[in-house]
């Protein structure tokens, strides 16, 4: 698989898996308006996933299309970050994840608009506006939950404790990213982190939340196909229809 194909697969899987998680809020959010907000975000991510997986399929050159990649790969072939596969938890868990992930994804896409790969730059150019809204939504809610009632504060602080260790993986590098950064194709995680750290710190501070101390636990491995056991059941649900009725259309 070419480097660009693998990179597009990673970013596409992030968008696809988080899209499915957010879609699971459909009809379950605290209010119908929030239901619509979260599923709107899910649809934006699904659109990004489709474009990125299409690029991955074309660059791979083995004739796989977006559906083949989304619905016919087993768990170990998914390349998404661990944080996006976690179950939704309560509303605070979902919002804190949105804050941590969309802040990362926004600077990622902003960097990729200048990628030397025209396909990736085009996807990023469209997605950057969508994700700007996702981050705004997450920030607004983090402030309201963190600095809201005692219960909403406790729950969002608990969500932060749970999710905080997963942030390390967002900024990991490996040989693939090193090659692609040299070629001007990929975004440099060091650059992303330099905007992520102060932005998230400022939001948490305003939301009266406290960033936890770093412990030994740093969940990782998603980019190599090593996932939590939680991903399997999610993929089973997501892939069931396509596997039961291959190529089915509405």
């Amino acid at each position, binding site marked *: 698989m070419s480097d660009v194909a693998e990179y597009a697969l990673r970013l596409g899987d992030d968008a696809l898996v988080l899209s499915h998680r957010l879609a699971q809020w459909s009809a379950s959010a605290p*209010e*119908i*308006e929030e239901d*619509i*907000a979260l599923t709107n975000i899910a649809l934006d991510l699904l659109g990004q996933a489709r474009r990125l997986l299409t690029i991955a399929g074309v660059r791979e050159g083995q004739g796989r299309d977006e559906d083949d990649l989304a619905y016919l790969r087993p768990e170990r072939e998914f390349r998404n970050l661990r944080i996006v596969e976690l179950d939704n938890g309560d509303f605070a868990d979902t919002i804190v994840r949105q804050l941590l992930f969309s802040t990362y994804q926004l600077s990622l896409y902003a960097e990729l608009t200048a990628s030397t790969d025209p396909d990736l730059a085009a996807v990023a150019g469209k997605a950057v506006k969508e994700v700007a809204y996702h981050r705004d*939504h997450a920030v*607004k809610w983090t402030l*309201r939950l963190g600095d*809201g*009632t005692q219960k909403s504060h406790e729950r969002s602080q608990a969500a932060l404790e749970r999710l905080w260790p997963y942030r390390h993986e967002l900024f990991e590098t490996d040989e693939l990213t090193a090659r692609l950064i040299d070629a001007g194709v990929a975004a440099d995680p060091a650059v992303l982190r330099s905007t992520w750290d102060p932005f998230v710190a400022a939001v948490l501070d305003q939301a009266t939340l406290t960033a936890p101390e770093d412990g030994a636990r740093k969940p990782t491995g998603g980019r190599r196909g090593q996932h939590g056991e939680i991903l399997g059941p999610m993929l089973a649900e997501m892939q069931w229809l396509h596997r039961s009725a291959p190529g089915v259309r509405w």
Partner: protein
Amino acid sequence: MSDERREWPLWEVFVRSKRGLSHQHVGSLHAPDAEMAVRNARDVYTRRQEGVSIWVVATADITASSPDEKDAFFDPAADKAYRHPTFYHVPEGVRHL
């Protein structure tokens, strides 16, 4: 703020379309505050490019005429046809009317 769960207040939503000059009432929704109401309105009422600007107003802040007053308010206008500008002849040669 109490920890008890309360219903979100209701907001009236006004959207100005790309070609429109004024904001039109499009419906209402629930939101915890005005800032979130604008965002919810964006998601509920402008998903299909319906607008370029959104206003929200707390429904509780609207003072409305009462249905009980309908007769006194509106019926007296019914027989005053002369208020409609249909009795004027437009002179020939007047353009742009």
